[in-house]
């Protein structure tokens, strides 16, 4: 594999198997490790080797030779070399560790799509073990901490699938309805089902008013009590609606300006998270979901080498809700 040595616009040293500089910000498929002197990024959807972005080259020299080879470690900016990892087994472990960190945050748990949530205790065990295997990548006093304590889970409710807005105006004329998904980058994991069908909306004309009702399917394993600062909002064609947790769904409704047409856009998100650049990539989410389904199927078929413990447990979960 050929790799390129570049300098990005901020002066960081880049080692990449791809043409051109890496994206400024990671997307939902990026598995990232914070290592001595920089970070390593894989795409969970690709078999390509990692991209390194290094802000402290001296510190990173403790591992570049192991991950990319001696030639890459001493190569000048602008040059191209053959990757020749001195410790290929470390590269494999590092990719798994990055993947485990990815799974802890981006695993698209969904009741609708039959993707069970990962068990956080098992995932913490995977992370701890892999962190030890990758210790060469971290400076002596800064091994990226696997979450040290596993939060105690409160009681959770098995939420029924909301077939549509479960509350809201019963009477009136339905002008339009639809379903949509969420941009995962705009909401923390564990709140809303990751499916593209998780959010339902309905615009109704009632007593000379145009009203929209929104309902979102909770993520599998959502506790019965969620701190108020984590209650998502829905933006419907510019109107901000705070959602609340009803018995089996996140719900909210609001009057819309009379001029609102039947076509609306519904965007469920958590206020307070940084706004990502550009709209979410639905096709990318679909690929991630397909990737996860394929992994779960392969685990069930016994053909996936080295699944995470948490994945194996999830694959054994009954998904016929």
């Amino acid at each position: 594999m050929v790799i390129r040595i570049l300098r990005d616009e901020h002066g960081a040293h880049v080692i990449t198997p791809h043409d051109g500089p890496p994206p400024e910000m990671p997307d939902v498929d990026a598995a990232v490790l914070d290592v001595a002197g920089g970070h390593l990024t894989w795409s969970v959807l690709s078999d390509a080797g990692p991209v390194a972005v290094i802000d402290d080259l001296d510190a990173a020299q403790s591992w570049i030779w192991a991950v990319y080879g001696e030639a890459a470690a001493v190569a000048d900016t602008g040059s191209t070399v053959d990757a020749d990892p001195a410790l290929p087994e470390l590269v494999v472990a590092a990719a798994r560790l990055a993947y485990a960190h990815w799974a802890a945050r981006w695993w698209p748990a969904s009741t609708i799509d039959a993707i069970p949530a990962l068990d956080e205790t098992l995932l913490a065990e995977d992370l701890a073990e892999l962190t030890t295997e990758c210790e060469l990548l971290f400076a002596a006093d800064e091994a990226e901490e696997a979450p040290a304590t596993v939060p105690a889970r409160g009681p959770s409710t098995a939420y029924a699938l909301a077939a549509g807005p479960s509350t809201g105006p019963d009477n009136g004329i339905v002008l339009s309805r639809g379903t949509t998904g969420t941009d995962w980058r705009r909401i923390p994991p564990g709140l809303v089902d990751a499916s593209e069908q998780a959010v339902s909306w309905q615009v109704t004309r009632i007593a000379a008013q145009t009203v929209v009702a929104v309902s979102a399917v909770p993520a599998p394993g959502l506790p019965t009590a969620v701190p108020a600062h984590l209650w998502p909002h829905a933006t419907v064609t510019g109107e901000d609606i705070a959602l609340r947790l009803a018995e089996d769904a996140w719900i909210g409704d609001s009057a819309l300006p009379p001029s609102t047409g039947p076509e609306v856009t519904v965007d469920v998100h958590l206020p307070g998270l940084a706004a990502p650049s550009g709209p979410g990539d639905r096709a990318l989410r679909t690929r991630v979901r397909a990737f996860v389904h394929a992994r779960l199927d392969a685990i069930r078929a016994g053909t996936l080498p080295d699944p995470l413990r948490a994945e194996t447990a999830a694959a054994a979960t009954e998904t016929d809700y």
Partner: protein
Amino acid sequence: MPTAPQRPRALVIHEVWRELRGVQALSGPQGAPLSRTVKLILDPLVIRPVQHPHCAGPLVTAEGAARLTELIRAAGAVLADTAGWFALFKRVRRLMRITDGHPQDRYFQRCFELATTVGTPDPAAGRATVEEALREMHDASEGRTVEALKAHLADPDRAAELAARLKKSWVARDETPVPGDHDDLLTAVLDAFPSGDPGPGTRRLTAARAGTASGRALWAVRDALGAGPHPARELGLTAHDVPVVPSPGASSSGPAEPFDRTVYQRIFTVLRTSADRAELPPVAELVAAEAVRACEPWALSDETLRVVAAVGVRLALGLRPLETGGETAAHRAVNARWRREAYVLRARRLSLAPEPAAEPLTRVAGELARPWRAYLRRLWARLHGRDVRGLGVHDTELWDLLDGVARSVILDHRDQVRRALSVHETSPAW
């Protein structure tokens, strides 16, 4: 300019390490020496880069590589014995059910010492040696305990006497401004990082009493240190407009701001974080010294440590986690680390808007707008720990210290965001 061919130092070490026999206990999963083996054993005790400068740095020349190989090969037997002792330490530690401290941190150097002085551990006698060493390292608090501190300050007469002493020293503080503008020197020190020698700059700052100057300025002066009308408050060192006399205190809970912490809190932290409490002064002396220290500039006794605090202020006020660049080499290095963190936070779904509307998100995000507060709180705690033990900061340690504080602040922020965004966490202190 033609440059001599260079090789990664870590790779050279790995290659010679693979030749050694019996060093598994000091090796990582891929057979390379553990990061702590390099940091705590190879660098300070075997390679000693100060004596062998061409063996230092991330890349070494052929000559440096040859010398490095020679040094490590020559130490092969001692390293194997060190590994033998370490394996024994771990086994006996398990049997004694000791769990505190990181075994590599605590035992590596002791193992090297035993390997050098005793040699190969004898199965029977070695175990007794290790048991004794462990008992000494873990039990020998020699009365320097939190219980002793609690008992000492629980006596109402003693607490009242301490409060009176604090008040008296506080009123008697020398608040005379130290003349001189140290800004250029502070800038020069920060521009020497990460690889230059800050020594000349720090020595001149110490001679000019720049640490005392900034510490006294924090007691009262408006707009001191470029930190607004209430500098000590703006810097996160006190919740008051100007620092007030600290109280004796009787429990470990209390203010987070360094200058507001009680004497109890300050000593408590030292006792909790000390690996070798037996080397501390007795509790009564610790308390008496703290009463003096608390009324000194920066609440630190050693001028060189106060100078580090002044350097820290200059660095901290220029940190821009949400932007890029920076005024000095040190600022650029730490800000680059923050930029890396911004990427990691995005990749972990942990990136907060600059001003979220709901607590605790507002508070957590707000720390990035004023990064100097968390920075200086952590820096002060580390300097205080050194002050109590009578340790200074060596020039070669200064960048590690300043950079290490930045790293802690960054990881602490990441952890706080993670907790604030966790659905499952039962809500803690906010």
